[in-house]
């Protein structure tokens, strides 16, 4: 519990309006967008909404002294429970830290506070012709601090990589309240351990990321969107694989199955061609229209040779936006199909993608669950969504067995548990299989060195 004296100290740091302690306000910070149920609640004892790194530092100093657990949070759009306060304590919500501190055009870098929404950072840079590529499906509402802490991926990873490929430096408030700066604007930098990489993807367990420095690249001059329909997922996977081997690297290559297409059709009140069983959406970019035309033609040829049913190129920006909006909303739309949805985030070597998709179809049949499949086919990251009703007797046990099989399939082809969502709470039981004893021991050693009291985001990862 946090007594009145401690509350007063924290009020003095951030101001009374930014400390929430009523029952329902605390309830609001007890969940994220993972499938961890709302009940029983994981309510924090206190919600603190700091505005500056200095305030974060002073809150951490109090928490450290009083040994209060602290769980950092942005928009709570994470899918693995990363921002859920498992042990009560403080939910440290950084969504008021919304300043884009500096856009350094000469060095093509940008510095932003943790609470800046991903899309706002993208637009801010795009206005100057600079490109910040990481674009998780949630980019309209996710915050950049969470993107770094989870090392978020996105649609464009196939060509441009993930968040960590752009992080040049970080401002981190450590467990005792000290403020650390890592990295910097020098492109080559081997001065000491690479702490920037250590904190990137650390899921709030090593420090509170309050500010990040990112490198940018020039904005592609032209973009195009293609939508190709297939009879089945296999033809779609084969198209993407053949396309990549032929030397065409699209900015994004997404796949979705019949279940996903049906939910889209239902929302748009349209009829889905009964012949269609899968869809791929591709973004291509380049310097001019000719470059786009060459890529589009190449992709069309490959798609037709792989049995494409229809091939459509978006004719306007609005049409392209609509196609991508559908893709971005798929996860939540699919989730609404059943009382519960267990969403996974496995990632496999690119050449194993068709194989793992086939195995998921077998797992679906074997356990009798609908498993909707969509994901980033271009980079081997797939999101199988298992649809179930956990209120049915015995269902939970069957779900566990099916999920075990999904992870086993991913690991057996050389893949991993999480491509872009992190481990959080939901994948914790499986991490030993993925990393082994020595792997876990090493993670724990790092944790003990940076957070000896175990206050930062307790109960996560292992």
């Amino acid at each position, binding site marked *: 519990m946090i007594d009145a004296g401690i509350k007063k100290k924290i009020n003095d740091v951030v101001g009374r309006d930014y400390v929430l302690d009523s029952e329902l306000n605390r309830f609001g910070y007890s969940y994220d967008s993972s499938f961890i149920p709302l009940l029983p609640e994981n309510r924090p004892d206190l919600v603190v909404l700091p505005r500056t790194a200095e305030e974060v530092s002073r809150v951490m100093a109090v928490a450290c002294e009083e040994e209060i657990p602290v769980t950092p949070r942005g928009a709570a759009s994470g899918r693995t429970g990363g921002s859920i306060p498992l042990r009560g304590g403080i939910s440290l919500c950084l969504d008021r830290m919304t300043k884009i501190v500096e856009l350094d055009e000469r060095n093509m870098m940008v510095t932003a506070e943790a609470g800046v929404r991903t899309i706002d950072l993208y637009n801010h840079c795009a206005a100057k012709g600079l490109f910040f590529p990481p674009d998780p499906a*949630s980019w309209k509402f996710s915050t950049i601090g969470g993107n770094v802490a989870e090392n978020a991926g996105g649609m464009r990873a196939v060509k441009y990589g993930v968040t960590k490929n752009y992080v040049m430096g970080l401002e981190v408030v450590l467990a005792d309240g000290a403020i650390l700066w890592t990295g910097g604007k020098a492109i080559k930098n081997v001065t000491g351990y690479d702490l920037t990489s250590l904190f990137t993807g650390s899921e709030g367990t090593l420090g509170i990321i309050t500010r990040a420095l990112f490198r940018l690249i020039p904005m592609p001059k032209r973009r195009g969107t293609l939508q190709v329909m297939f009879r089945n997922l296999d033809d779609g996977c084969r198209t993407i694989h053949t396309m990549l081997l032929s030397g065409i690297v699209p900015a994004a290559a997404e796949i979705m199955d019949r279940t996903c297409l049906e939910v889209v059709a239902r929302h748009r009140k349209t009829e889905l061609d009964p012949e269609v069983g899968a869809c791929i959406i591709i973004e291509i970019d380049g310097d001019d229209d000719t470059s786009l035309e060459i890529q589009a033609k190449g992709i069309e040829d490959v798609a037709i040779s792989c049995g494409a049913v229809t091939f459509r190129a978006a004719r306007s920006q609005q049409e392209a936006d609509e196609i991508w909006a559908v893709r971005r909303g798929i*996860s939540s739309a699919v989730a609404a199909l059943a009382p519960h949805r267990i969403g996974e985030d496995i990632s496999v070597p690119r050449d194993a993608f068709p194989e793992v998709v086939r195995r998921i179809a077998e797992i679906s049949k074997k356990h009798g669950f609908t498993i909707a499949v969509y994901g980033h086919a271009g980079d081997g990251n797939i999101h199988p969504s298992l649809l179930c009703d956990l209120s049915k007797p015995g269902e939970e046990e069957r779900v566990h067995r099916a999920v075990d099989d999904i992870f086993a399939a991913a690991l057996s082809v050389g893949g991993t548990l999480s491509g872009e969502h992190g481990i959080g709470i939901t994948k914790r039981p499986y991490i030993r299989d993925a990393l082994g004893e020595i792997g876990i021991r090493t993670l724990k050693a790092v944790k003990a060195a940076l957070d000896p009291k175990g206050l930062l985001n307790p109960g996560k990862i292992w």
Partner: protein
Amino acid sequence: MTTALKQRHDMDKKMDHDLLREAGRMVGRCDRCGTCLPVCPLFGVKGIEATSARGKNAVTRALADGGLEPTREALDIVNFCLLCRACVDTCPAKVPTDEAMVDVRQHLIDLTGGASTKYKLVGGILKRPGVVKAASAALSILRRSGLNGLFPYGMAPEAYTRSHFLTAFAGPAALGQQAPPSTVSVSDRSKVAYFRGCGMEMMFPEAAAQTRAILENTARLREPGNVCCGLPHLAHGLRGDFLDLARRNIRIFEEADVVVSDCASCGATLKHLGSFFADDPAWKDRATAFSAKVMDLTEYLAKVGYTPRQKTAAVFTYHDPCHLVRGQGIAKPPRELLKAAGGFVEMKGSDICCGGAGSFHIDYPDAAAQILDRKRRNIEETGASVVVTGCPGCLIQLAKAAKASGGKFKAMHISQVI
């Protein structure tokens, strides 16, 4: 009580008890992704999870599943909603947060022993058409009861009338451009009726008169004398009254072929009546048939090919009432009409709620003022001289914004400028 009345009473009650379960079912589709966060105007000004659509849905689900107690704080949370549907529009799973909020309000109010006295009094006034018609009488009751804040009478005298508008904008560009009389001929068979909204009657009678004038140009207008659409009752835990008013309106307009509303909120409510009687075999078909006849003024005018009575030099911008753009999917017809009546500039965030939201601006003046301030800046950025809308609730807010802008623009109902 007669048997029929008793049955109806029981049915209304039964529905009340099922409301929380129904709301829980609706928000059960929410997977808490957060897509609604950037579009929720209240989360935009408060920044606290429980003020967002996601936060309210989570509270609703936990209430329905028995994890949270039905407290005063819970009622405060569901009351703090504009019912603007911006979240529903953007939601990948189309969770109807507004409908869920209305249901949970009713449920919590039933539990805690009835609607607040304030809403009962206002609801009572709006239920009596005679009183609404005598707008000044209604307002004097409100003033005597200290409730005049709900209907800011001070707004009406400041309202900008059609004649002011024509005087101001009949400049050189308008000379000789008097629009020809409307060429529309509506067949004698279509019986067109006007639905007089309480807000239009009480606060903007001049605009309501213009609606009548426009409609009389297109058809022989009928005014069977309706009662309140019931939205204020529904939104504040007086569901029984709402259903009662709905039945009366359905009966009153049974003879009409088309029911035209110049209030976005009335129109949206009336268009949805069918769904409220889905479980009531005696009223289901009548309610559905009634809803199908309801049209917004601009929707009707687009259908009959109406041409504005004049084209002036005025430059308009348009504010989409939530209950028109999302409640009825109407965005194009009013813009087309305005383009035919003068210049038109689209404003940024034209479909974001103005903060009026029925009596929300009275209950939560600070939040409403912050939302309105953003709206005012967006209007000013267009350089337009008149902001036009199609809802008396919005018009109250926009008139405040016009005043705050120091005369940079006027606020008017669409009937006054076409």
